[in-house]
């Protein structure tokens, strides 16, 4: 990176309002050729809005963008792509049925009179895959047969074919293994040496330190700070990200663990790589750490009867509950909060009251008819109890914010009188205040003798609220310790390498 060079991109005093909320407030950002610039911040801090403005998907209300010294105001995503700005989103944008080559050349096929020039395209595709040092990916295989890591490489190759000058990567490693992440960092280095500017968005601060040359932190739509990577510490970055709220983030509620309440003995589900033995105690919050794809979700789903059990046993209290699906588990007092809130966890178009009572209609049914009045009354009660920001129990869940949606999902488990809570990424994608409220609700539950399995990819929250933490790595439970014996480094080491660092 050369600091004397003029910036590739300069975004000046960018502002954007969505209704009454100010998503971006006069944010400055710049990028030099051959540089990786990390864009950091909590969810809702404005990162994605800034990227959407750059990619032409959203128009700013104020501010100017300069691209290689010229004013740039993209009318839409296509114009932005043509100008050399490529965004690789979290959910990859590939057509699963098409081959690698077809995806890379999609929308810019070479042709004569409408007929494809396949041989020449093949050369181009091989060249692009070679540039990212992944020439071994066969161009004629359908993308759906590739691993997630390989798909990402295909997206990067597509950006190269488009002659991207600026590459935006949004959480590129969130579904990669440690090894694949390292390979990705290698590709990023090569792209940098070719003069491509990279905007890197990630929650994993350690990898940001490894990849980025500079960092800009956003908080609540404002620029909270920026600097050269070697000049800022992780502590400083975190402080910039959370502002003054870091102290009350993990409210402590005193609770005492009792006897084992639910036990998984050598349990192996259809989609689990290995059998897992784990016991959760009454009044305990047990954290499960691990990367995405490490088998945590599959374990929870098997425990809940959503995935078929292949071998082993599940014991709740004194009863074996191996057979049966979710219906039977709910009767036993087990509740699951899905990691996919919008896709699976909630019926988005239905009301708060309906979503709340979906798993336990019994109190509102008389002779097969639903008693709307009672249901609504329960809705009001839970809205107050969970501090859900809503106009009333009739409001569709789709119109709530992420944090409030999650509170509805959690309230459903409470409403069905669960005693064991299986929470899969309960704080993903929600604002800090809601997060803190959910942590408090968890502590409160534990103090009342309920038990919680808390799956999360975000280690600080596990360390902040759990009594014990188990780490999953490639489908296996590799280590279980009291929280006091863990720290972030040890968790990271266990989650990425399968063995905890020596202490």
């Amino acid at each position: 990176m050369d600091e004397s060079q003029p910036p590739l991109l300069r975004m000046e005093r960018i502002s954007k309002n969505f209704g009454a909320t100010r998503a971006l407030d006069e944010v400055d950002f710049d990028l030099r050729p051959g540089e990786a610039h990390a864009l950091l911040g909590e969810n809702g801090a404005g990162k994605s809005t800034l990227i959407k403005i750059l990619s032409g998907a959203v128009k700013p209300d104020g501010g100017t963008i300069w691209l290689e010294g010229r004013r740039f105001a993209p009318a839409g995503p296509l114009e932005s792509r043509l100008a050399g700005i490529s965004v690789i989103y979290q959910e990859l944008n590939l057509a699963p049925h098409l081959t690698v080559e077809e995806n890379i050349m999609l929308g810019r096929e070479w042709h004569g009179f409408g007929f494809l020039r396949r041989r020449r395209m093949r050369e181009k595709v091989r060249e692009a895959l070679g540039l990212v040092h992944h020439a071994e990916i066969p161009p004629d295989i359908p993308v759906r047969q590739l691993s997630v890591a390989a798909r990402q490489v295909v997206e990067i190759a597509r950006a190269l074919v488009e002659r991207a000058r600026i590459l935006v990567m949004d959480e590129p490693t969130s579904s990669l293994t440690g090894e694949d992440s390292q390979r990705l960092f290698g590709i990023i280095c090569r792209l940098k040496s070719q003069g491509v500017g990279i905007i890197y968005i990630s929650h994993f601060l350690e990898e940001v330190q490894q990849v980025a040359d500079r960092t800009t932190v956003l908080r609540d739509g404002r620029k909270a700070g920026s600097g050269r990577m070697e000049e800022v510490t992780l502590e400083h970055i975190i402080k910039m990200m959370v502002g003054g709220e870091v102290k009350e983030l993990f409210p402590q509620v005193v609770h005492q663990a009792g006897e084992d309440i639910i036990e998984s003995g050598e349990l192996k589900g259809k989609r689990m790589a290995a059998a897992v033995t784990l016991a959760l105690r009454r009044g305990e919050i047990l954290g499960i750490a691990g990367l995405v794809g490490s088998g945590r979700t599959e374990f929870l789903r098997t425990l809940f009867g959503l995935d078929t059990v292949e071998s082993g046993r599940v014991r709740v209290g004194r009863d074996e509950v191996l057979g049966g699906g979710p219906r039977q588990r709910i009767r036993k007092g087990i509740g699951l909060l899905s990691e996919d809130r919008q896709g699976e966890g909630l019926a988005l178009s239905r009301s708060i009251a309906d979503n709340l009572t979906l798993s336990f209609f019994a109190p509102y049914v008389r002779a097969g008819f639903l008693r709307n009045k009672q249901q609504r009354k329960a809705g009001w009660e839970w809205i107050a109890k969970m501090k859900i920001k809503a106009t009333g129990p009739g409001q569709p869940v789709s119109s709530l914010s992420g944090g409030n949606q999650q509170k509805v999902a959690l309230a459903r488990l409470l409403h069905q009188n669960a005693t064991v809570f299986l929470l899969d990424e309960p704080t993903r994608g929600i604002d800090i205040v809601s997060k803190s409220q959910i942590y408090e609700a968890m502590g409160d539950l534990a103090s009342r003798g309920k038990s919680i399995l808390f799956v999360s990819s975000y280690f600080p929250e596990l360390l902040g609220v759990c009594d014990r933490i188990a780490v999953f790595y490639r489908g296996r439970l590799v280590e279980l310790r009291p929280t006091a014996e863990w720290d972030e480094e040890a968790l990271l080491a266990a989650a990425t390498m399968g063995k905890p660092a020596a202490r």
Partner: protein
Amino acid sequence: MKNARGGSRRIRLLVNFLGPFLGLLLVVLIFSLLPQVQDRFLRLGNLKSVATQSVIVALGALGMTFIIISGGIDLSAASNIALSSCVVAFVINAGSPPWLGVLLGVLTGGLIGLVNGTLITALRMVPFIITLGMLGIARGAAKWMAGNQKIDAPITWVNQLMARSPRPSWLLMAPGVWLMILLAVAMAVVLRTTVFGRHVFAIGSNEATARLCGIRTKLTKVVIYGLAGIFCGLSGVMEFSRLTVGDPTVAVGLELDIIASVVIGGGSLNGGQGSILGSMIGVFIMAFLRNGCTMMGWPNYIQEIIIGLIIIVAVALDQLRYRRDS
């Protein structure tokens, strides 16, 4: 990891390619082994009549293949065929030259398709609803035009298109059959080797991605439905040729045969998958079944049950294959 089953890939591709053929072969084999019909089933004359019987569904299936690969559906295909055939009869009956009747019939089909495509993209409604509406509209229009009865028309060269023993005799098969083969090859080429064809697959596989990559998804869809409409128009011409009259009540429910052919041939109603060759094989599997069952003297309801089962089995096998893939 990237190319886990590299070695067996070629074999699998071959199996995938041959899969539909095997189904067709099985159907033909079964009937040619049944003692009651084996002497008649594989006769040239019978094969010719199966081919001729297939033309109408096959032409519809060519267009439907494009629609289904793009993730859409066209329920109005059969109504469109009936309307087009009535237009041909109407124009010829009015004393115009037969070629004008054929041309206007084909254009009517294309127009209905264009309207379908335009409404789907402009109103952002699902193809199922728009074409369900068009199913009623086109059928109603045909009956209106025909005054709720058959339209008679003088016999012209148009009726030769579907003649089982064509003139000149060196043609061997009806001109309609040759047209079907020619168009099938042409459409397979369009689907596989043109930018348009690739965009059809891309839209069906992931429309958001296609738009992101700068593909004009709306325009492409309008073209797809327009093209499919033209094939329905052609199919309508063949229907008229076969019946020698314009019958507005003909081909009721035929859209389901057309869709079934595409699906048996590996088309996915979720889009992104399908091929012309597969659809044609689907057409012939159904045609041979109908023909064989009739020869055996089996009642109509047996045919219906068998074809129903075939649809379910074919798609189940296809899904198995797909799941193993991914």
